[in-house]
């Protein structure tokens, strides 16, 4: 019993929030572009794939646009802090959406697709150290964040996450993210290239996110504005 208590005591030299910031920087540079393939797998094995191009700047600006399938092509989403807008080519103008709104089907929601830095949205309340692993207990800074709390398993050497559990305010587990297949993206960026997700709320369903061509890119703030949203694809 005494041993168990000892294991639960924070024993890492950095405090939790500093570790979280390091995890953020290891997952991606502060300003970068990337491509992601999203695969939704249904219990019967059928799949639907989406490809997105995204650009992020600073802690609180991200814009994404679907490149495929054809039915979604050109659909773009902009997030600046908790403000979020959706542009649908048919509609011809961006509309402000609630930041919890989902822009595509499947288990991934906007919080995953348009994710800001974890340290921008969560405070680390507590760190547990286990053999080779740090478990960060994160609490949402505001009620606007999709998950009320998050438990993050982090490799204590590489400071990269291997698993994240996302909880509702009731304490119910909403989904689990598994980080896999660590890859060297160049320019010192070594991180998992795959995130698999499942959810007890959607038994048998699985969503996969594969990262490609992630690299540093500094763009002016004007690229993260409502007026530019219809033209995001031209940044590629």
């Amino acid at each position: 019993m005494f041993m168990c208590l000892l294991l639960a005591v924070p024993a890492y030299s950095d405090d939790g929030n500093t570790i979280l910031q390091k995890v953020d920087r290891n997952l991606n540079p502060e300003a970068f572009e990337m491509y992601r393939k999203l695969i939704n797998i249904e219990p019967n094995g059928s799949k639907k794939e989406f490809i997105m191009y995204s650009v992020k700047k600073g802690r609180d600006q991200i814009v994404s646009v679907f490149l495929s399938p054809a039915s979604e092509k050109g659909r773009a989403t902009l997030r600046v802090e908790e403000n979020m807008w959706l542009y649908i080519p048919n509609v011809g103008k961006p509309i402000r959406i609630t930041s919890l709104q989902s822009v595509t089907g499947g288990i991934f929601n906007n919080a995953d697709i348009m994710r800001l830095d974890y340290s921008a949205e969560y405070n680390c309340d507590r760190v547990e150290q286990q053999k080779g692993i740090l478990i960060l207990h994160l609490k949402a800074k505001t009620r606007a964040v999709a998950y009320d709390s998050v438990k993050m398993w982090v490799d204590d050497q590489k400071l990269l996450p291997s698993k994240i559990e996302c909880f509702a305010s009731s304490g119910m587990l909403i989904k689990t993210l598994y980080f896999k297949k660590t890859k060297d993206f160049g320019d010192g960026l070594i991180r998992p290239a795959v995130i698999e997700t499942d959810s007890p709320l959607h038994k048998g369903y699985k969503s996969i996110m594969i990262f490609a061509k992630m690299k540093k890119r500094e763009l002016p703030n004007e690229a993260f504005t409502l007026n530019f949203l219809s033209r995001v694809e031209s940044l590629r």
Partner: protein
Amino acid sequence: MSKAPVAYSVYVMSLFLAFLPPAFGQDEYRFDLSEIEKEIEKKPYHIGGFLEFRPILFGLDTDAAFYKIKFFDQDQGSTLEQYNFGLRLEGSYQKGIAGLYFRTDSLLWYDYRGWDKDMTLLEGYLSLKPNPSQTLNTGKEVVQWGKGYAFNPVSFVSRPKNPDDPTEALEGYYVVTADLIKSFGGPLKTLAFTPVILPVTENINDDFGKADYINFAAKLYFLLWDTDMDLMFFTGESRTPRYGFDFARNIKANFEIHGELAWITDFKKKSIDPQGNLSTQESDILRALFGIRYLTASEITYIIEYYHNGGGIDKDDAQNFFRFADQAYDTFLSTGESAPLTRTAQLSQATLATAKPMRDYLYFRASWKEPFDILYFTPAAIAIINLNDQSFSLTPEFVYSPKTNLEFRLRTAFLIGDNHTEYGEKQNDYKIELRARFYF
């Protein structure tokens, strides 16, 4: 009714199924970054669009004014069918800072009048983007302004949306537009200026307004204290001057509010007397919209909008029109004289036959994303209520995308109202529409 359209329907549905991508196996995904990198390789050009098949069944209301105006000398029975076939083509070509864009609609349809077709260039313009802060476009382009979902009173240089299908692509006007964007730190995060030049001649933009004038409009956008705000104006001789303001803001993470105000000077308000005479009176009018978007924990999105059209037909004038239509039909039945019905039809074109022609409307939409674990399935219910005469339309809708790039939408609109009300006097009691789209 010929059997040909039914045969065409079966043929077209078979084509949709034939176009389906091959079913995926039960394998897990493949992790092959080189394959993904090949898929994301950027090409300078793009061609895409969709094929559409859209059969509609209209349930006719034989007692309604608009049925009598249209079919007074025909017996169409209790239902009408229409078969619509569409091809949307969209394309772009980009070289350096210049890009060319186009969007066309080609339609072929069959109804009680036989076959007909139409082709429209919705948009086609050249765009210059030297950097993310500056854009210059010229050509036919949709310039949509406003924050409303179903109505946009401040959209001064675009065609009006169809509130029954507000997310459908519109046809643009020939314009020259620019976009100048500046970002800042502090409470004012973005400032953007969008000037528009819209010429009207006998051949260009001739349905916009009076010909042989060059019109100017502009919009100034602010993202200030996390609130979107726009100020806009329109000036020129083709239409009377107008000034607008709109805003949108997230009150909570799942609750958004928005609104629009448009002040239109010297607007020609129409009224109809009991003898069916149309008169106009010039006055300044206000068009306004206030709306909310609310997302529940179970992913039901509610959109509710109130729309006031100060230039709309008022309730008394609408009742005068419907009484006049009744009289014209009675005259036809008793004497065979159809001229009063022809006059009623002409009168309706400028007044009650237009989309949402009266003063006050409430729009309601509730859509539920993927209920009961059915992926890519969204049922919705839409209601548009005419607050002046309490008539309304109620439309349940189901959208399902069973396979990549294939989408089905089934909706049934019920039009409900008393005699001499907008929805009570529509040609149809109900309308059932299936829309199948295959995107490529």
